[in-house]
């Protein structure tokens, strides 16, 4: 086989997914995102583990031409979360109810007040906007990646993210 042909085949062959590296860089973000959707900690644990298990099982079907590994992983996590929500027939628990924060000190500070305000503002958002906020702030996805995750265009995703951001800023003010 000639070198040219080998190089051509190497270029056309989709890159393999480095699952370990993806896991190391994204596991905390996946958990944060999942918990923001499903609410309680126990369910978030299960769904996070399930999401990584699904991703591991489907790692050979990953196609780099259809998106980044991170977007692919968060799509799986989002589907797992929504499936869990459907199964449990309940709406997502407000992000502010996650309850993972340490107890606030007795003496309230300005930072604590701001944190409470932000938590309340996030909790007041509709679930779809909370989903977008989580994808943007916790998953760190670009608008294009969010669009691919939600099955919408990048422009549409940008519009929705901007709207959710505006709602959040308004709720915080």
């Amino acid at each position, binding site marked *: 086989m000639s070198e040219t042909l080998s190089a051509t085949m190497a270029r056309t062959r989709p890159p393999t997914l480095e*699952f370990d590296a993806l*896991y190391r860089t994204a*596991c*905390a*973000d996946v*958990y*944060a995102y999942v*918990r*923001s*959707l499903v609410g309680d*900690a126990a369910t*978030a*644990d299960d769904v*996070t*583990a*399930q999401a*990584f*298990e699904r991703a*591991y*099982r489907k790692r*050979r079907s990953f196609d780099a031409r259809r998106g980044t590994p991170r977007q692919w992983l968060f799509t799986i996590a989002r*589907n797992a979360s*929504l*499936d869990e*929500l*459907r199964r449990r027939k309940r*709406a*997502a628990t407000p*992000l*502010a109810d*996650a309850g*993972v*924060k340490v107890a606030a000190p007795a003496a309230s500070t300005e930072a604590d007040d*701001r*944190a409470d305000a*932000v*938590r309340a503002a*996030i909790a007041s958002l509709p*679930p*779809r906007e909370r*989903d977008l*906020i989580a994808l*943007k*702030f*916790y998953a760190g996805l*670009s608008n294009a990646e969010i669009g691919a995750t939600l*099955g*919408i265009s990048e*422009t*549409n995703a*940008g*519009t*929705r*993210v*901007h*709207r959710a*951001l505006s709602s*959040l*800023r308004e709720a*915080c003010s």
Partner: protein
Amino acid sequence: MIRSDQTPESGAPLDPKVIAELDQLDAALRGEAVTDEALAQLVRDVQAQAPEMPTALRTQLNEDVAAGFPRFGKAGADRAERRPTATKAPRVGWRVFGGMAAVATVCCVMVVGLATMDGDDSYTTSSESLPELAAARPSGPSDSASPQSADPAAPDLERSSRDGSTGSGSSGAAAPSELDQASGALDSATTQKLKPSTATPASGRRRVEQSVEMSVRVKSGGLDEAAGKVGDITRRAGGFVADSEVSMRTRGAGSATFTLQVASSKLDAAIGSLSDLGTVTRQDQQSVDITSSFDTANQRLGDAKAVRKALLRSLDKADSAGAIAALRTRIADNRKTIAGLESEILQLDRRTNLTTIGLSLNAPSGDAPSGDDDGRWTIGDALGDAGSVLGTVGGVLIVAIAVLLPFALIGGLGWSVYLVRRKRARDGALD
């Protein structure tokens, strides 16, 4: 199919101010300095609200990832165990399916190819005598050359002719000497009566039943004309068409089969005329010697008639009512035996006088070489056969696709509907 809910502006380009704000957001998320300090602070505050991953979960996931998810809970362990085979099984299944499909295709091509080829162009003539045929194939009583097997009553008659008695009658009317004389006298009479169809062993004439199988390749488009000539040839040969079936295909191709009955005396002429219809690709002629069957039947008929004559004499001399009644019964039985033997002889006679010809006419398509060649299988024939086979296979594939396409479309539509419904159901979980 994707729902563009709450996004009337989805098709329009974003406002530059929106784009700028989104750029600022992305920069703040990356930890870069932005001019909108409020946005930067909001990003920091929201990120600070991110739920932290429990250490136990992280430890467990680290182990799972390192080990390839052998655990994943109780159910997960099972899933993990099944997983390699579950992911490989479809591939193996597809391999097996592909192999079976390939084998089936090859078999189809071979079958179609063999069915398409018009014989092997061999010209064989075989002639089998009665002993070989009797050993090689099951045959009727008259073919078996067994004098006793043709008629259940024959042993009785044979015995009665030797014993001078046709049964156990106590009349004793017919003396052996009388029966012998009667037999001799009636033998010649029977021979005279059945003269056209009999050939006694004394005459030395052979009785041969013949049958011929022929395959003739006619030129493309000439099947109709050839089929019409078959009837004329048969009539000229003193026979008739017992059965015929003509099948026309496209581009002048077609096939026809005939069952002909011709006079044996004109068989050679008939075969010659049929051969002129095209190229004889196969001819199989069989001859069965039934002389012994014929002679045996004649012999038994003569004996039966002699017995009848003796019985009639005995009837003339009988004086008691019981003897007369017994003799009449035996005469009636004898009459049935004679009628059966005469019918058997006529049947044998017909079999020797008429010959059955199984004729097969084949006309290739217009693209294939005509039948006017030298009978050898050439490269051209091979190419023609290959083209015909490919054409047939292509036709079969087209039919298969036509049959399967609606199912595939329905399946694809159903799968699409399932995906859309699942997506909507997932999106609906956030409402």
